Structure formats: C-alpha cells, structure tokens
C-alpha cells in the first residue's frame, strides 16, 4: 500500500478472526485492529475528520491554536495532525492518566494542562470549556459534541467492516465520546437490518467516581441511545482479565479498553450459542498495550494489576 503522506494512511485497518476465542464455527469473533493507524489508535480517524471539517468551515487557519479535553489518544492523534498542518495544540488531561501518553504528547509538540484526577474526563471537559471561554481565539474541536467525530466512523470504520464482513451480526466497542458506536452503528443499521450494536462502558474504581455528584454528571452531546441495542458496564478486573486472555490465546497485545470491549463481545457470543444463533461479532481493538506498560497491567497476578490500576483512567 502506498500513500502520499502519513495522514493519507489513516484507516483501512485489518479485521482478523479470533479462532481460539470464538466459541464455534457458527459463532465467530473478529477484531478490528485500530492500533494499526498512524499514531497507534482509532482516534486518528475522528481527529483527522474534525481537523479537516474545521478547515473547510474556515475555523482553522495556519498558526491557529487547537484546544482539546483528552485523556490521551485523541490528543496524540491531534498532535500529529497539528504538527503536519502547522497548528499549535493544547490538551487538557486528567492528572491520573499514564506517563507514556504525556511523553508522547510532548514529543509531538503539544502543551498539556492537567485537570484534577477526581472526576476523570468530566473534569477535563469542564476545565477545557472554561479555557475556551477565556480564549475565544483558540479552537476547541470538542470530540464529545463534534459531529465530524461520529461521521469519521460512519464514512470509514463502518464501511470497512461491512466490506470485509457482510455477514456481521454484532458490533461491540468501548463507550467514551460515543463517536465510534454512533458512527459505525448508524452505518451498519442501514446495511444490516438486525445488527446488534453493543456498548462496553469502563467501570472505574471509587476514586474516579468518588466525588461525582449524581446531579452534575456528563453525557456526551453525541450520544443517542436509540443507536444502541444494549450497554454493558465492565469492571477493571474483567477488562484486565480479557486483555491478558487476548494476548495469551490470540497473540494480540492491546490496551485495557480493548479487554473491556472483548468482555462484552464474549458475553454476546455466549448468548448466541445459548440461543443457537449464528453470529459474526466484530469488536474494536482501540489501541495497543504500549502506552499502558507503566500501569503494571501486564505483570504479576490479576489482583496485583487491579490494585495498581485503582484510580487510573485506563480507557
């Protein structure tokens, strides 16, 4: 495959079968390897779409400053685009995100503003919105509410999956900005009438939820529940266990949010077997495990790894 530049190589990622984790020949699980994007995560798609839409709309011109609340991958993708296209990038990031992500962002030239650990990404969004109000010349792409986020998946991820696997019955992905599920979900619903769109939501420890007030929660503007068939809450312990299982049985070294999606995918597979139905279940490998090595997720017993992960944003 040949491309004119790194940016042009976003997408067209492999879809690989998981013969050892699939329960039978009739119920198969497939992994969409989004870690094969230029900066190593699925976020290269929405980042590129959001930047190019802002350019089309005349919001972004050379020399502009982009501001974005991000716990890592979107920031890294934006930093790469910003560097190649001549923009400055400021990321607002919860302080309890991994050191690797910070180093990567700085390496690509982004500036980082930390937001308090308690409250996680909600807090980063709040801080970023405040900064945007103070600096009207900064351009906040705002992945949680920018339609170009879900459109990137409607126009690229979704069509790729359908072209590679027209018999797809389930699509499973992590729920964050909700962009992947909204975009791929809407596309596949048009092509496969009975498709099941399943969200896997990370469930963090006490520290992250601890101070959240139930009256001041956060639901991304992009979220439309009618696109989903159902939604699972996956604990850190289950996500970790599945991340290791994927490495041990299929050789795929993925980040922890992938374990979260795989847990829900395996749950749907079990259900299909029980009901005697055929299934082709696609789930998203959002990134590789590299950025999470320092969390200790891959070393020692599961209990030890879970303790080390307490209070960290792992997705």
């Amino acid at each position, binding site marked *: 495959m040949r491309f004119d530049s790194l940016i042009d190589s976003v997408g067209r990622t492999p879809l690989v079968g998981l013969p050892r984790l699939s329960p039978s020949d009739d119920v198969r699980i497939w992994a969409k390897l989004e870690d094969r994007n230029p900066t190593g*995560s699925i*976020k290269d798609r929405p980042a590129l779409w959001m930047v190019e839409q802002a350019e089309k709309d005349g919001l972004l011109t050379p020399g502009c400053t982009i501001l974005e609340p*991000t*716990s*890592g*991958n*979107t920031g890294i993708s934006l930093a790469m685009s910003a560097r190649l296209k001549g923009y400055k990038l400021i990321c607002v990031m919860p302080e309890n995100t991994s050191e690797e992500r910070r180093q990567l962002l700085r390496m690509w030239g982004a500036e980082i503003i930390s937001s308090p650990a308690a*409250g*996680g*990404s*909600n807090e*980063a*969004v709040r801080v970023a919105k405040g900064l945007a109000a103070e600096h009207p010349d900064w351009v906040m792409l705002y*992945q*949680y509410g920018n339609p170009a986020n879900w459109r990137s998946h409607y126009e690229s991820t979704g069509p790729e999956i359908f072209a590679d696997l027209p018999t797809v019955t389930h699509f499973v992905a*992590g*729920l*964050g*900005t*909700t*962009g992947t599920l909204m975009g791929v979900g809407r596309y596949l619903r048009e092509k496969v009438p009975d498709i099941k769109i399943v*969200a896997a*939501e*990370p*469930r*963090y420890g*006490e520290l*992250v*939820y*601890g*101070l*959240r*007030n*139930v*009256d*001041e*929660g*956060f*639901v*991304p503007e992009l979220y439309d*529940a009618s696109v*989903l*068939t*159902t*939604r*699972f*809450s*996956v*604990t850190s312990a289950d996500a970790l266990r599945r991340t290791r299982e994927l490495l041990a049985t299929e050789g795929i070294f993925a*980040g922890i*949010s992938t374990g979260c999606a795989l847990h829900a995918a395996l749950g749907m597979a079990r259900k299909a077997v029980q009901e005697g139905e055929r299934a082709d279940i696609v789930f998203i490998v*959002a*990134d590789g495990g590299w950025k999470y090595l320092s969390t200790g997720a891959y070393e020692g017993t599961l209990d030890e790894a879970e303790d080390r992960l307490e209070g960290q*944003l*792992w*997705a």
Partner: protein
Amino acid sequence: MAIEIRIPTILRTYTGGAKAVDGTGATLEELIGDLESRHPGLRDRLVDDSGLRRFVNVYLNDEDVRFLGGLSTPVADGDTVTVLPAVAGGAR
C-alpha cells in the same frame, strides 16, 4: 436470598456508609421503593417524574437497565444492581 444493590460513594449518606445493601421486589421500581422504606431520601436521588434521573446509570448484572425495561425491568433474588453516576469516557 435477596437482591444486592451497590451504592456509589456520593449516595452512601443514605445507607449509613454501606457500599451495598440488600432489597426485594419484582421490578426495579419495587426494589427502589423497598430501599426507600429503610433508607429515606434515596429514591429522590435516583428517579424523578420522568423515570431514572439523567445522570444516574443503573445496571442489572452489568447491563444498563435503560435497554432492558427501565424502572419496569424485572429483578430477582441473586441479581446484582449497580448504581453509578454518569461519567465521560476514558481514552478520548
């Protein structure tokens, strides 16, 4: 046997600090009613006139009840119900 309800930190003022409490009922609505009888004030933090409050997520055995039947979702002994505040996702 009963149904276990896991309570987030912010609502433990209603449960005397307990992380989890037991309850009974045939539906989520009955279960919440049963909890209210022993932990007054809790119900109002979970539901309003339109149903579950916007920023409250309730999971029956890890599945979001909004996709199961909302407050009418059937529950049974041995189930685990988890209440969590809605938060923004992670790696984004």
